[in-house]
């Protein structure tokens, strides 16, 4: 416990130091001198924590047309939808191909080709087909998440210990029962390993969609692009910090879920 407290103390120290330096170096009295050495250490480019703080409250107030929290809800909604659809479809596809070697062999070149295509290259196409709204953002997140989850589940389903499958058959398991009691739980361990990166990548997909989507798409990504248009560093920093915090919260959520569902694994067993 003291070890944990020490880790947390260090974390807090880094946070305070970073924001303190940031605030100090961009102070009006010294920023001229500092920006002569490193030109972007200037409130114009990186704003200041105090300015970001006040912009944060302003952007959440009734003074703006779409308050920040609504932008965040829009981003979260697309991210979670894309994540859920991506995980679901990736998991099913991974299981099916992982247990069907023939089908996997047939589809392999297409999967490799599609996966090596940079997902960002698909953004304009997705926009053409699905427009600028929620659907396009969800599709973008889904396209990224699907492949991550698919490949992991595929590996997991293919790598199920054949002796476990035999043992289940000897206990009288039908094929669907083998699937449900042996293959799915075994593959799930692999799937879970892919969920934390997946949720981050879902967020990436959505934000890129919001860059393109403009005001009708909304979201934090829109705030970033709009801030670029206004050369408003404080708003951009608000958006970035909110995104960062969102990422942490989502990753923690996944971790909690994993600890619950994979509590049989040695690393989740209570120590004592």
């Amino acid at each position, binding site marked *: 416990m003291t070890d944990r407290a020490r880790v947390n103390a260090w974390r807090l120290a880094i946070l305070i130091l970073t924001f303190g330096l940031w605030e100090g170096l961009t102070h009006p009295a010294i920023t001229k001198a500092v920006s002569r050495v490193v030109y972007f250490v200037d409130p114009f480019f990186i704003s200041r924590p105090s300015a970001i703080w006040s912009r944060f409250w302003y952007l959440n107030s009734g003074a703006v047309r779409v308050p920040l929290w609504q932008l965040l809800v829009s981003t979260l909604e697309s991210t979670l939808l894309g994540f859920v659809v991506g995980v679901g479809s990736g998991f099913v596809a991974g299981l099916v191909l992982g247990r069907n070697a023939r089908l996997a062999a047939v589809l392999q070149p297409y999967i490799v080709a599609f996966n090596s295509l940079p997902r960002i290259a698909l953004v304009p196409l997705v926009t053409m087909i699905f427009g600028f709204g929620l659907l396009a953002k969800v599709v973008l997140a889904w396209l990224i998440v699907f492949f991550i989850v698919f490949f992991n589940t595929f590996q997991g389903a293919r790598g199920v*210990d054949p*002796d*476990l499958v*035999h*043992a*289940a*058959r*000897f*206990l*009288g*398991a*039908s094929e669907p*029962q083998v699937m449900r*009691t*042996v293959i799915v*739980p*075994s593959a*799930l361990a692999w799937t879970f390993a892919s969920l934390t990166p997946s949720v981050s990548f879902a967020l990436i997909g959505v934000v890129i969609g919001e860059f393109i989507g403009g005001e009708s798409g909304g979201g934090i990504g829109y705030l970033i692009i709009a801030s670029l248009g206004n050369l408003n560093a404080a708003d951009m920093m608000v958006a970035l910090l909110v995104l960062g915090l969102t990422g942490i919260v989502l990753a923690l959520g996944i971790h909690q879920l994993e600890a619950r569902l*994979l*509590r*049989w*694994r*040695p690393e989740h*067993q209570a120590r004592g």
Partner: protein
Amino acid sequence: MGPSGCGKSTILNMIAGLVAPTGGVMRVDGQALTGIPPQVGYVFQKDTVLPWRTVLQNVTLGLEYRGVPRAERERRAREAIRLAGLDGFEDAFPATLSGGMRQRVALIRTLVVEPEILLMDEPFGALDTHTKLRLQGQLLALWIGRRQTVVFVTHDLAEAITLADRVIVLTSRPGRIKHVHAVKLPRQRDVIRIRETDQYAREFSALWHVLGEEFAKGETAEEAGGTA
């Protein structure tokens, strides 16, 4: 019993319907095999307990597959767990158990569905002597109630005599039945004390000679194979 590579496990796998014989037909209860026969239970040497299920959930597995209602299967599983001396571990996950305990879970998981024929492929081979003796004792205790057919592969002669009514010795490759030995020990056996009886010693030395020849042959064959 027989030297390694003589086909002991292959015979088990044929009875289990996992391996098709290259010639002839495998019949279980007079029926030619197509796939896994339903009356057969199989305990592997390797630990095949499902790690994501607790002890209780592992033991109920076969009953669950057969559609036995939850209350009934848990009652039977708890009874079996108690007989195997695993009470208190019902809700433990396999990762927290020792190898011997996991193998006991695998054993009662198979016994609880009451197979008519039980195949065991060196189930205690990976365990230390002490654990092995305990499990042999428990196997006998669990078996005595139902007395189903058990085909038990081992290369431990003491284990074969302790457990078996008949010991079948295979020749080294190609595997043939070399000798069928009837063990003349009373059926109620204490795995420790039986070793101190004269009859046990006689059984042991009789089989020791038969087996010794085959192991010696197996070794020369292996050496020849290695240098060829």
